[in-house]
């Protein structure tokens, strides 16, 4: 089980309070689909993903990005039991959605880069470390029920 220190929890929470979930979520997912185009394979039903501007402006991408980042909000409330928190979502991503867990790690990396663009100097190395630990742990939790 991943253990987060008091400092790591505080760092994550302090930044989370200022995050615009819709903007950061939408942008993170859009960047994933653009920087790693093969990830588009899971989003055939999302409509126009033909160009960078189409992806960045796609309302389904934004909506799904917001949904994904909202689940991070839930993760932050349950940092001591991420596997339990994400058990159902893990089964869903394995059994119904058939998503390679590597994608969870890639999306986590995108979230960090987007946070860095928004928070700049405030996104210190220590802040980056805490968030990287969180996104890695969420990715692992999402992969935990795969079979």
């Amino acid at each position, binding site marked *: 089980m991943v253990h987060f220190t008091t400092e790591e929890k505080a760092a994550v929470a302090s930044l989370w309070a200022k995050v615009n979930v819709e903007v950061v979520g939408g942008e993170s997912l*859009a*960047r994933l689909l*653009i*920087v790693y185009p093969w990830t588009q394979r899971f989003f055939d039903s999302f409509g126009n993903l033909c160009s*960078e501007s189409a992806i*960045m402006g796609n309302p389904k991408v934004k909506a799904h990005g917001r949904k994904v980042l909202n689940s991070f909000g839930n993760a932050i409330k349950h940092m001591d039991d991420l596997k339990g928190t994400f058990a159902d979502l893990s089964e869903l991503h394995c059994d119904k959605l058939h998503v390679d867990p590597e994608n969870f790690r890639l999306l986590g*990396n995108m979230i*960090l*880069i*987007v946070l*860095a*663009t*928004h*928070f*700049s*100097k405030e*996104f210190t*190395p*220590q802040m*980056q*470390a805490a968030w*990287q630990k969180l996104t890695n742990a969420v990715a692992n939790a999402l992969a935990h029920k795969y079979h």
Partner: protein
Amino acid sequence: MLSAQERAHIAQVWDLIAGHEASFGAELLLRLFTVYPSTKVYFRHLGDQPDEVQLLSHGQRMLQAVGVAVQYMDNLHAVLSPLADLHAQVLRVDPTNFPLVIQCFQVVLASHLQGEYTVEMQAAWDKFLTGVAVVLTEKYR
């Protein structure tokens, strides 16, 4: 293969780094060591707790090499050959570490350029640095 647009994005971002290789490089290393402490095993020569002077010095060397790669984007194999030899014979950095450096590089660029760090720039730099990593490890075996 990098498209003309990708090359332009790479060069445009590099213009902001050129002349500041030391500070960007130091920040890259500091983030790398903080976020991925296991990478420090490859930098024992900098000591247990590298100080700012060492980070600036080594960071500058690394970023200057990136600058050379930017200048000769079309001929990475030739221009990075000595560094490829070094990594294969002496440094022997496990290839799984290069994505970690690239992630930290992206965070450095993103935090400095903020809203101006477009997805096109991010994609071009990801592709470019991944290509550099491939060349640096291609003589491993």
